[in-house]
Protein backbone atom coordinates (compact mmCIF):
# COMPACT_ATOMS: atom_id res chain seq x y z
CA UNK A 1 0.00 0.00 0.00
CA UNK A 2 1.28 3.45 -0.88
CA UNK A 3 0.65 6.26 1.61
CA UNK A 4 -0.10 9.79 0.44
CA UNK A 5 2.04 12.57 1.85
CA UNK A 6 0.37 15.28 3.94
CA UNK A 7 1.02 17.84 1.23
CA UNK A 8 -0.67 15.71 -1.40
CA UNK A 9 -3.54 14.95 0.94
CA UNK A 10 -4.05 18.66 1.64
CA UNK A 11 -3.91 19.38 -2.06
CA UNK A 12 -6.60 16.78 -2.71
CA UNK A 13 -8.73 18.18 0.11
CA UNK A 14 -8.45 21.64 -1.42
CA UNK A 15 -9.43 20.34 -4.84
CA UNK A 16 -12.47 18.57 -3.42
CA UNK A 17 -13.63 21.63 -1.48
CA UNK A 18 -13.23 23.96 -4.46
CA UNK A 19 -16.57 24.87 -5.97
CA UNK A 20 -17.27 23.76 -9.50
CA UNK A 21 -17.72 26.93 -11.53
CA UNK A 22 -17.46 25.10 -14.88
CA UNK A 23 -21.06 25.90 -15.82
CA UNK A 24 -20.62 29.60 -15.04
CA UNK A 25 -18.63 32.47 -16.51
CA UNK A 26 -16.32 32.50 -13.47
CA UNK A 27 -12.86 31.05 -12.97
CA UNK A 28 -11.96 29.98 -9.47
CA UNK A 29 -8.86 31.72 -8.11
CA UNK A 30 -8.70 31.16 -4.37
CA UNK A 31 -10.70 30.87 -1.18
CA UNK A 32 -11.12 34.15 0.69
CA UNK A 33 -12.89 32.96 3.79
CA UNK A 34 -15.23 30.42 5.25
CA UNK A 35 -18.08 30.68 7.72
CA UNK A 36 -20.78 28.49 9.16
CA UNK A 37 -23.16 29.14 6.29
CA UNK A 38 -20.82 29.03 3.33
CA UNK A 39 -17.53 30.11 1.85
CA UNK A 40 -16.37 33.10 -0.15
CA UNK A 41 -14.07 32.67 -3.11
CA UNK A 42 -12.14 35.03 -5.30
CA UNK A 43 -12.96 34.40 -8.93
CA UNK A 44 -12.50 36.05 -12.27
CA UNK A 45 -15.46 37.03 -14.41
CA UNK A 46 -14.23 35.91 -17.84
CA UNK A 47 -16.83 37.93 -19.75
CA UNK A 48 -16.21 41.26 -18.05
CA UNK A 49 -12.59 40.52 -17.19
CA UNK A 50 -12.86 41.57 -13.56
CA UNK A 51 -12.39 40.03 -10.15
CA UNK A 52 -15.46 39.14 -8.14
CA UNK A 53 -16.12 37.64 -4.73
CA UNK A 54 -18.39 34.64 -4.92
CA UNK A 55 -20.30 33.41 -1.92
CA UNK A 56 -21.38 29.79 -2.16
CA UNK A 57 -24.09 28.81 0.31
CA UNK A 58 -24.06 25.44 2.04
CA UNK A 59 -27.44 24.35 0.80
CA UNK A 60 -26.97 21.38 -1.55
CA UNK A 61 -30.35 19.71 -0.81
CA UNK A 62 -32.43 22.63 -2.01
CA UNK A 63 -35.85 22.15 -3.64
CA UNK A 64 -36.94 23.93 -6.83
CA UNK A 65 -39.46 26.04 -4.97
CA UNK A 66 -36.91 27.19 -2.44
CA UNK A 67 -34.39 27.87 -5.19
CA UNK A 68 -36.87 30.15 -6.96
CA UNK A 69 -37.60 31.99 -3.75
CA UNK A 70 -33.92 32.36 -2.91
CA UNK A 71 -33.16 33.74 -6.33
CA UNK A 72 -36.09 36.14 -6.00
CA UNK A 73 -34.68 37.32 -2.68
CA UNK A 74 -31.24 37.69 -4.18
CA UNK A 75 -32.79 39.90 -6.86
CA UNK A 76 -34.32 42.11 -4.19
CA UNK A 77 -30.99 42.41 -2.37
CA UNK A 78 -29.26 43.07 -5.68
CA UNK A 79 -31.66 45.98 -6.08
CA UNK A 80 -30.18 47.72 -3.04
CA UNK A 81 -28.11 50.29 -4.84
CA UNK A 82 -26.25 52.23 -2.19
CA UNK A 83 -22.57 53.19 -1.90
CA UNK A 84 -22.45 51.42 1.48
CA UNK A 85 -23.90 48.13 0.29
CA UNK A 86 -21.73 45.72 -1.64
CA UNK A 87 -23.42 45.19 -5.00
CA UNK A 88 -24.56 41.73 -6.03
CA UNK A 89 -23.63 41.21 -9.70
CA UNK A 90 -25.02 37.77 -10.29
CA UNK A 91 -26.80 34.84 -8.70
CA UNK A 92 -27.00 31.26 -9.87
CA UNK A 93 -26.76 27.58 -9.08
CA UNK A 94 -23.67 25.36 -9.19
CA UNK A 95 -23.83 21.87 -10.73
CA UNK A 96 -24.02 20.39 -7.20
CA UNK A 97 -27.17 22.43 -6.51
CA UNK A 98 -25.63 25.05 -4.25
CA UNK A 99 -26.66 28.67 -4.70
CA UNK A 100 -23.98 31.27 -5.29
CA UNK A 101 -23.86 35.06 -5.33
CA UNK A 102 -21.24 37.00 -7.27
CA UNK A 103 -20.46 40.29 -5.57
CA UNK A 104 -18.08 43.16 -6.01
CA UNK A 105 -14.63 42.19 -4.80
CA UNK A 106 -13.73 44.79 -2.19
CA UNK A 107 -10.07 45.55 -1.57
CA UNK A 108 -9.36 46.89 1.89
CA UNK A 109 -9.64 45.69 5.44
CA UNK A 110 -12.44 44.34 7.55
CA UNK A 111 -13.79 46.63 10.26
CA UNK A 112 -12.32 44.47 13.02
CA UNK A 113 -8.88 44.69 11.42
CA UNK A 114 -9.34 48.40 10.75
CA UNK A 115 -10.26 49.02 14.41
CA UNK A 116 -7.06 47.38 15.62
CA UNK A 117 -5.04 49.79 13.51
CA UNK A 118 -4.49 53.37 14.62
CA UNK A 119 -7.97 54.65 13.74
CA UNK A 120 -9.09 57.40 16.12
CA UNK A 121 -12.38 57.13 18.01
CA UNK A 122 -13.95 59.83 15.85
CA UNK A 123 -12.82 58.07 12.70
CA UNK A 124 -14.33 54.82 13.96
CA UNK A 125 -17.55 56.64 14.77
CA UNK A 126 -17.68 58.14 11.28
CA UNK A 127 -17.25 54.70 9.73
CA UNK A 128 -19.90 53.34 12.06
CA UNK A 129 -22.26 56.11 11.02
CA UNK A 130 -21.74 55.14 7.38
CA UNK A 131 -22.66 51.55 8.30
CA UNK A 132 -25.85 52.79 10.01
CA UNK A 133 -26.77 54.79 6.92
CA UNK A 134 -26.30 51.78 4.63
CA UNK A 135 -28.37 49.58 6.95
CA UNK A 136 -31.05 52.29 7.21
CA UNK A 137 -31.23 52.36 3.40
CA UNK A 138 -31.73 48.58 3.33
CA UNK A 139 -34.42 48.85 6.01
CA UNK A 140 -36.20 51.51 3.98
CA UNK A 141 -36.34 48.91 1.18
CA UNK A 142 -37.67 46.24 3.50
CA UNK A 143 -34.44 44.30 3.91
CA UNK A 144 -33.07 43.30 7.33
CA UNK A 145 -29.45 42.13 7.35
CA UNK A 146 -29.55 39.87 10.45
CA UNK A 147 -25.82 39.18 10.56
CA UNK A 148 -24.19 42.55 11.15
CA UNK A 149 -20.76 42.22 12.72
CA UNK A 150 -17.32 43.78 12.15
CA UNK A 151 -16.30 40.83 9.99
CA UNK A 152 -19.12 41.67 7.56
CA UNK A 153 -18.09 45.30 7.14
CA UNK A 154 -15.26 46.31 4.84
CA UNK A 155 -13.31 49.53 4.75
CA UNK A 156 -12.16 50.03 1.18
CA UNK A 157 -8.80 51.41 0.13
CA UNK A 158 -10.29 54.92 -0.19
CA UNK A 159 -11.97 54.79 3.22
CA UNK A 160 -15.34 53.80 1.80
CA UNK A 161 -17.52 51.61 4.01
CA UNK A 162 -19.30 48.57 2.58
CA UNK A 163 -21.69 46.23 4.34
CA UNK A 164 -21.21 42.69 3.06
CA UNK A 165 -22.87 39.34 3.33
CA UNK A 166 -26.55 39.89 2.81
CA UNK A 167 -26.91 36.13 2.50
CA UNK A 168 -29.07 35.76 5.62
CA UNK A 169 -30.95 38.97 5.02
CA UNK A 170 -34.67 38.91 5.57
CA UNK A 171 -37.10 40.67 3.29
CA UNK A 172 -40.20 42.11 4.88
CA UNK A 173 -43.19 42.81 2.68
CA UNK A 174 -45.38 45.91 2.78
CA UNK A 175 -47.61 44.44 5.48
CA UNK A 176 -44.54 43.98 7.64
CA UNK A 177 -44.63 40.18 7.52
CA UNK A 178 -41.65 38.06 6.66
CA UNK A 179 -41.46 36.59 3.22
CA UNK A 180 -38.38 34.38 3.10
CA UNK A 181 -34.68 34.74 3.46
CA UNK A 182 -32.20 33.29 1.01
CA UNK A 183 -30.22 31.09 3.30
CA UNK A 184 -32.66 30.47 6.04
CA UNK A 185 -35.49 29.48 3.76
CA UNK A 186 -33.29 26.89 2.14
CA UNK A 187 -32.96 24.98 5.34
CA UNK A 188 -36.18 26.26 6.95
CA UNK A 189 -34.04 27.62 9.70
CA UNK A 190 -36.08 30.62 10.70
CA UNK A 191 -39.33 28.79 10.09
CA UNK A 192 -38.65 26.31 12.86
CA UNK A 193 -36.85 28.82 15.04
CA UNK A 194 -33.27 27.74 14.51
CA UNK A 195 -30.79 30.47 15.29
CA UNK A 196 -29.18 32.42 12.45
CA UNK A 197 -26.45 35.00 12.89
CA UNK A 198 -23.43 35.46 15.12
CA UNK A 199 -23.96 35.00 18.86
CA UNK A 200 -22.05 38.08 20.13
CA UNK A 201 -23.89 40.39 17.74
CA UNK A 202 -27.29 38.78 17.83
CA UNK A 203 -30.40 40.34 19.34
CA UNK A 204 -32.20 38.37 22.09
CA UNK A 205 -35.20 37.70 19.85
CA UNK A 206 -32.87 36.42 17.13
CA UNK A 207 -31.03 34.26 19.65
CA UNK A 208 -34.38 32.76 20.69
CA UNK A 209 -35.19 32.08 17.04
CA UNK A 210 -38.35 34.16 17.46
CA UNK A 211 -38.81 34.92 13.78
CA UNK A 212 -41.98 36.99 14.25
CA UNK A 213 -40.17 39.43 16.52
CA UNK A 214 -37.28 40.06 14.15
CA UNK A 215 -37.47 43.45 12.51
CA UNK A 216 -35.15 46.38 11.86
CA UNK A 217 -34.61 46.80 15.61
CA UNK A 218 -32.80 43.45 15.57
CA UNK A 219 -30.27 45.04 13.23
CA UNK A 220 -30.17 48.06 15.55
CA UNK A 221 -29.15 45.67 18.34
CA UNK A 222 -26.35 44.24 16.18
CA UNK A 223 -25.23 47.76 15.27
CA UNK A 224 -25.04 48.53 18.98
CA UNK A 225 -22.83 45.47 19.45
CA UNK A 226 -20.61 46.62 16.58
CA UNK A 227 -20.38 50.05 18.22
CA UNK A 228 -19.45 48.44 21.54
CA UNK A 229 -16.71 46.52 19.73
CA UNK A 230 -15.40 49.73 18.16
CA UNK A 231 -15.35 51.62 21.45
CA UNK A 232 -13.58 49.06 23.59
CA UNK A 233 -10.98 51.51 24.91
CA UNK A 234 -12.49 53.92 27.44
CA UNK A 235 -15.84 54.80 25.86
CA UNK A 236 -17.40 58.02 27.10
CA UNK A 237 -20.61 57.94 29.15
CA UNK A 238 -22.52 59.21 26.13
CA UNK A 239 -21.12 56.54 23.81
CA UNK A 240 -21.88 53.88 26.41
CA UNK A 241 -25.45 55.17 26.67
CA UNK A 242 -25.86 54.93 22.89
CA UNK A 243 -24.60 51.33 22.98
CA UNK A 244 -26.93 50.48 25.84
CA UNK A 245 -29.95 51.98 24.13
CA UNK A 246 -29.17 50.21 20.85
CA UNK A 247 -28.64 46.93 22.71
CA UNK A 248 -31.64 47.14 25.01
CA UNK A 249 -33.15 43.73 25.69
CA UNK A 250 -36.64 44.79 24.68
CA UNK A 251 -36.88 45.91 21.03
CA UNK A 252 -39.24 48.76 21.99
CA UNK A 253 -36.55 50.25 24.25
CA UNK A 254 -34.02 50.42 21.40
CA UNK A 255 -33.67 53.07 18.72
CA UNK A 256 -36.66 52.64 16.45
CA UNK A 257 -34.44 52.65 13.37
CA UNK A 258 -30.84 52.65 12.19
CA UNK A 259 -31.39 56.25 11.05
CA UNK A 260 -32.15 57.30 14.63
CA UNK A 261 -28.97 55.58 15.81
CA UNK A 262 -27.03 57.26 13.01
CA UNK A 263 -28.47 60.64 14.04
CA UNK A 264 -27.30 60.12 17.63
CA UNK A 265 -23.81 59.22 16.39
CA UNK A 266 -23.79 62.41 14.30
CA UNK A 267 -24.75 64.40 17.40
CA UNK A 268 -22.02 62.66 19.40
CA UNK A 269 -19.46 63.58 16.72
CA UNK A 270 -20.70 67.19 16.75
CA UNK A 271 -20.58 67.36 20.59
CA UNK A 272 -24.33 67.84 20.65
CA UNK A 273 -26.64 66.24 23.24
CA UNK A 274 -27.69 62.71 22.27
CA UNK A 275 -31.15 61.22 22.77
CA UNK A 276 -29.75 58.23 24.67
CA UNK A 277 -28.26 60.21 27.53
CA UNK A 278 -29.71 62.89 29.78
CA UNK A 279 -26.95 65.27 30.80
CA UNK A 280 -26.82 67.15 34.08
CA UNK A 281 -26.06 70.88 34.09
CA UNK A 282 -22.35 70.37 34.74
CA UNK A 283 -22.03 67.93 31.83
CA UNK A 284 -23.90 70.36 29.56
CA UNK A 285 -21.51 73.18 30.44
CA UNK A 286 -18.46 70.89 30.09
CA UNK A 287 -19.60 69.75 26.66
CA UNK A 288 -20.25 73.33 25.55
CA UNK A 289 -16.84 74.44 26.81
CA UNK A 290 -15.12 71.48 25.13
CA UNK A 291 -16.91 72.25 21.88
CA UNK A 292 -16.16 75.98 22.01
CA UNK A 293 -12.73 75.79 23.58
CA UNK A 294 -11.21 78.55 21.48
CA UNK A 295 -14.04 81.01 22.06
CA UNK A 296 -13.92 80.31 25.81
CA UNK A 297 -10.16 80.88 25.80
CA UNK A 298 -10.63 84.19 23.97
CA UNK A 299 -13.24 85.39 26.44
CA UNK A 300 -11.07 84.30 29.38
CA UNK A 301 -8.10 86.13 27.85
CA UNK A 302 -10.30 89.20 27.46
CA UNK A 303 -11.45 89.08 31.08
CA UNK A 304 -7.88 88.50 32.30
CA UNK A 305 -6.68 91.48 30.29
CA UNK A 306 -9.54 93.53 31.77
CA UNK A 307 -8.53 92.60 35.32
CA UNK A 308 -4.87 93.43 34.59
CA UNK A 309 -5.90 96.81 33.17
CA UNK A 310 -8.09 97.58 36.18
CA UNK A 311 -5.22 96.95 38.62
CA UNK A 312 -2.48 98.56 36.56
CA UNK A 313 -4.41 101.77 35.88
CA UNK A 314 -5.27 102.42 39.54
CA UNK A 315 -3.63 105.53 40.91
Amino acid sequence: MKWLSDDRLNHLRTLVSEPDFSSTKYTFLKELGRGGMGAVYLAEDRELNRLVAIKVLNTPDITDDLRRRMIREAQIIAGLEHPGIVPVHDVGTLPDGRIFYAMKYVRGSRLDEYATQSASVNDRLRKFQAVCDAVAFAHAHGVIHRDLKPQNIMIGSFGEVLVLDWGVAKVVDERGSIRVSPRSSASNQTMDGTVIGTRDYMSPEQARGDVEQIDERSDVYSLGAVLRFLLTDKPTKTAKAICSKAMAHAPESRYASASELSADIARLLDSEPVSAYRENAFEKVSRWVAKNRFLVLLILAYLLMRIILIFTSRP
Partner: protein
Amino acid sequence: MSKPLIGVVLGAVLGAIDGLTAFFTPAVRDQLAGIVFGSTIKGIIAGIAIGFFAKKFHSLPIGILFGVIIGAFLAFLVALMQGGYYLQIILPGTIVGLIVGFATQKYGTSAATANS
Protein backbone atom coordinates in the same frame (compact mmCIF):
# COMPACT_ATOMS: atom_id res chain seq x y z
CA MET B 1 -29.10 82.52 14.45
CA SER B 2 -27.76 84.64 11.60
CA LYS B 3 -24.17 85.91 11.61
CA PRO B 4 -25.11 89.62 11.88
CA LEU B 5 -27.40 88.78 14.83
CA ILE B 6 -24.59 86.89 16.56
CA GLY B 7 -22.36 89.90 15.95
CA VAL B 8 -24.94 92.30 17.41
CA VAL B 9 -25.66 90.17 20.51
CA LEU B 10 -22.01 89.41 21.25
CA GLY B 11 -20.91 92.97 20.46
CA ALA B 12 -23.59 94.41 22.77
CA VAL B 13 -22.83 92.00 25.66
CA LEU B 14 -19.05 92.42 25.47
CA GLY B 15 -19.44 96.17 24.89
CA ALA B 16 -21.60 96.49 28.01
CA ILE B 17 -19.10 94.45 30.07
CA ASP B 18 -16.36 96.63 28.64
CA GLY B 19 -18.20 99.76 29.78
CA LEU B 20 -19.02 98.35 33.23
CA THR B 21 -15.31 97.93 33.99
CA ALA B 22 -15.13 101.73 34.16
CA PHE B 23 -16.61 101.24 37.63
CA PHE B 24 -13.13 100.26 38.80
CA THR B 25 -11.68 103.58 37.58
CA PRO B 26 -12.75 106.09 40.28
CA ALA B 27 -12.02 109.10 38.08
CA VAL B 28 -14.80 108.19 35.63
CA ARG B 29 -17.17 106.34 37.95
CA ASP B 30 -19.70 109.20 37.94
CA GLN B 31 -19.96 108.90 34.14
CA LEU B 32 -20.57 105.13 34.29
CA ALA B 33 -24.03 105.15 32.69
CA GLY B 34 -22.83 107.16 29.71
CA ILE B 35 -19.74 104.99 29.33
CA VAL B 36 -21.78 101.74 29.44
CA PHE B 37 -24.27 103.15 26.92
CA GLY B 38 -21.53 104.37 24.58
CA SER B 39 -19.56 101.16 24.90
CA THR B 40 -22.66 99.06 24.17
CA ILE B 41 -23.46 101.14 21.08
CA LYS B 42 -19.84 100.77 19.96
CA GLY B 43 -20.10 96.99 20.43
CA ILE B 44 -23.35 96.86 18.46
CA ILE B 45 -21.89 98.89 15.57
CA ALA B 46 -18.79 96.67 15.52
CA GLY B 47 -20.98 93.55 15.75
CA ILE B 48 -23.18 94.62 12.82
CA ALA B 49 -20.15 95.42 10.63
CA ILE B 50 -18.31 92.22 11.53
CA GLY B 51 -21.49 90.12 11.24
CA PHE B 52 -22.28 91.38 7.75
CA PHE B 53 -18.65 90.90 6.76
CA ALA B 54 -18.87 87.28 7.97
CA LYS B 55 -22.03 86.82 5.94
CA LYS B 56 -20.18 87.86 2.77
CA PHE B 57 -16.73 86.37 3.39
CA HIS B 58 -16.28 82.88 4.75
CA SER B 59 -12.72 82.91 6.05
CA LEU B 60 -11.76 82.58 9.70
CA PRO B 61 -8.40 84.45 9.51
CA ILE B 62 -9.81 87.27 7.37
CA GLY B 63 -12.89 87.50 9.62
CA ILE B 64 -10.72 87.74 12.73
CA LEU B 65 -8.48 90.35 11.06
CA PHE B 66 -11.50 92.40 10.05
CA GLY B 67 -12.87 92.15 13.60
CA VAL B 68 -9.55 93.32 15.06
CA ILE B 69 -9.37 96.29 12.66
CA ILE B 70 -12.99 97.37 13.26
CA GLY B 71 -12.69 96.89 17.04
CA ALA B 72 -9.44 98.84 17.21
CA PHE B 73 -10.70 101.61 14.92
CA LEU B 74 -13.96 102.20 16.84
CA ALA B 75 -12.09 102.06 20.16
CA PHE B 76 -9.55 104.55 18.80
CA LEU B 77 -12.38 106.96 17.90
CA VAL B 78 -13.80 106.63 21.44
CA ALA B 79 -10.36 107.20 22.98
CA LEU B 80 -9.88 110.21 20.72
CA MET B 81 -13.19 111.67 21.96
CA GLN B 82 -12.16 110.92 25.55
CA GLY B 83 -8.78 112.53 24.94
CA GLY B 84 -6.94 109.83 26.87
CA TYR B 85 -6.99 106.27 28.25
CA TYR B 86 -5.81 105.01 24.84
CA LEU B 87 -4.46 101.68 26.08
CA GLN B 88 -7.42 101.07 28.42
CA ILE B 89 -9.90 101.67 25.59
CA ILE B 90 -8.15 100.41 22.44
CA LEU B 91 -6.79 97.12 23.83
CA PRO B 92 -10.14 95.76 25.09
CA GLY B 93 -11.94 97.11 22.01
CA THR B 94 -9.50 95.25 19.78
CA ILE B 95 -9.97 92.00 21.68
CA VAL B 96 -13.75 92.39 21.56
CA GLY B 97 -13.43 92.80 17.77
CA LEU B 98 -11.28 89.67 17.64
CA ILE B 99 -13.82 87.64 19.64
CA VAL B 100 -16.77 88.86 17.56
CA GLY B 101 -14.80 88.25 14.35
CA PHE B 102 -14.06 84.69 15.43
CA ALA B 103 -17.59 83.96 16.67
CA THR B 104 -19.34 85.28 13.55
CA GLN B 105 -17.13 83.18 11.29
CA LYS B 106 -17.42 80.07 13.39
CA TYR B 107 -21.10 80.19 14.35
CA GLY B 108 -24.39 81.28 12.88
CA THR B 109 -25.91 80.67 9.50
CA SER B 110 -25.39 82.81 6.46
CA ALA B 111 -28.43 83.41 4.21
CA ALA B 112 -27.17 80.93 1.59
CA THR B 113 -26.76 78.17 4.18
CA ALA B 114 -30.11 78.86 5.78
CA ASN B 115 -31.92 78.58 2.45
CA SER B 116 -30.20 75.41 1.33
